[in-house]
């Protein structure tokens, strides 16, 4: 088997713009899936709305293309009903942390065994480049002509509100660290969130001064540094994995209630 068997390459070219970072995530995910033996009998993809949400259509798995913001309740229910499955959520920063923010907060709290890959391009790309919840302060976008006003959401801080959760930070430039992060996230016994900084050249990068996707990737290369070993908190522009205590996820009510019997 090869990682290419995980991808429906007959549907190429994809709808993603030239220079988009999402394909780099899909390739690394496919490689990890191949390494770990994930296939269409043991794995389900769940994707949200936005450019990233298209990924499910390009992969050789059953895939649920949910409503905008609703990947996590769908994924969590799948993991509850079928705990033996690998449930992999792939979506964007806007889908996961803005419209889906309440679900993110509570999925972190409940710690289901699902893997979340967040394509964090700091913008609403599909709708044309509006400010997102992750857009850095001061960034000029089509909906913040004077620069984004508010601080971006602290994804690491949110995930770390559960001491059992897994948070990893990488960029699409850093292919090795991204692959390690995805692999460890899938192997993690609870909620695992991989925050992947990625370029949207068409609807963000060019407006903030990057002539091409290549310059954006080079910027990630220059700016991002690997966190020191054993770091429990990643600073801004640090790559790494912060793992909580690997507790087994809380058993959903009904799933393991050994006590009691009889009629309802």
């Amino acid at each position: 088997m090869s990682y290419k068997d995980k991808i429906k390459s007959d549907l190429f070219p994809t709808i993603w713009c030239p220079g988009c970072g999402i394909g780099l995530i899909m390739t690394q995910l496919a490689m990890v899936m191949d390494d770990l033996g994930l296939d269409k009998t043991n794995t389900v993809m769940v994707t949200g709305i936005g450019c990233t949400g298209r990924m499910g259509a390009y992969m050789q798995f059953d895939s649920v293309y949910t409503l905008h913001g609703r990947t996590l309740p769908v994924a969590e229910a799948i993991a509850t009903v079928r705990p033996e499955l690998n449930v992999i959520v792939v979506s964007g920063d806007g889908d996961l942390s803005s419209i889906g923010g309440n679900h993110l907060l509570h999925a972190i709290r409940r710690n289901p065994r699902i893997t979340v890959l967040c394509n964090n391009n700091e913008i609403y790309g599909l709708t044309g480049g509006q400010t997102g919840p992750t857009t850095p302060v001061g960034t000029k976008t089509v909906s913040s002509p004077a620069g984004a006003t508010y601080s971006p959401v602290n994804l690491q801080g949110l995930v770390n509100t559960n001491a059992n959760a897994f948070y990893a930070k990488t960029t699409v430039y850093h292919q090795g660290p991204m692959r390690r992060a995805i692999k460890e996230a899938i192997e993690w016994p609870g909620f695992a969130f991989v925050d992947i900084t990625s370029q949207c050249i068409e609807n963000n990068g060019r407006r903030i001064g990057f002539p091409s996707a290549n310059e954006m990737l080079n910027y990630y290369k220059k700016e991002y540094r690997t966190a020191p070993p054993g770091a429990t908190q990643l600073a801004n522009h640090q790559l790494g994995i912060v793992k909580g205590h690997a507790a087994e996820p809380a058993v959903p009510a009904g799933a393991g209630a050994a006590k009691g019997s009889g009629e309802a």
Partner: protein
Amino acid sequence: MTKRLLQGNEAVLLGAVKAGASYFAGYPISPSSEVLMAASVHAASHPEFRFLQAEDEIASANAIIGASLAGAKSFTATSGPGFSLMQEAVGYAHKVGVPTVFVDVQRVGPATGMPTMPGQGDILQTRYGSSGDYTSIVFYPSTVAECYEYTIRAFNCAEESRSPVVLLTDAFLGHLNEVVDLDSIDVPIVERTLEPLASGHTRLFSGVATYPDGEPATADADEFIRQYEEATALRLAVAERYSFYEHGWNTDSDTLVIAFGITRRIAQPLAPHFALFRPIRIWPVLQDQLREIAPRYKKIVVIEGSDGQYASVVERVLYRDVYRVPLLGGRMSLEAVREGLDRIGLLPRELAETAV
């Protein structure tokens, strides 16, 4: 034969379990919370039954969709405001073809309204609440025993129609306690119709318009219409097998009362004076039955817990005016029915004389 005292909301849970449900997600909301609580109690002693008290109704509705796709018969219970929050997911389940059941225990709306008072104001929400075109199938029982029976039928119908089926009740019926014999209600169970996720396929369950191979079909009217007509045909054909209604009382009367859910029970003292048509399948509207029965009567009165939601549907179907007795603000009582009939000059003398 085992007789027992049972509440409408609890009967819904028992019906769901009987139908084979193994996943409930919900968010507490009056007057439906007993369904959620009963589900949690059931889950505590039945490991195969999974329960989630979710962060909100949006999560609940999407969770039951995920659970159904994963292989579980699933359901939620809510009331008007919560059902409003679920509407986008209802549309998704219609688009994707997800069998699942939404229970709406109606209260008085709009907005937070009168949380513990009964209403019937979600008739149109259950038909048109989500955006776009789709075919809703909705049942509305009138007794606690029927809450049990039609919950089972709702699950069966969801499987057959591959769609989210709605069971409507109301605060009155949900909290009503009646003696029932569940063993006497024998409804065959329809098994799962949807192959669960990760069965070796590469299907795309997409709320976005797509071709069967997963490519976007977001600008192809022909493909959209093909899929829409296919879904509509299936759901109408299945609904046809669930054309439940009641036609009775005094069929020699020149006046037909239309009442459903708890309102039919409240109006029972009218039985000697009027004929009754009670739709149990609220949607799709029982058009053929109404068109066959209505011409026998000079006058039609729709008594309902909203300001004419179902009456307007009857008028559209029959092309004729009907009298309306709206029971508003939670005043769902025989007294309110009497007042309403008196206002339109249709209160029978005997009922006026016995009025308290």
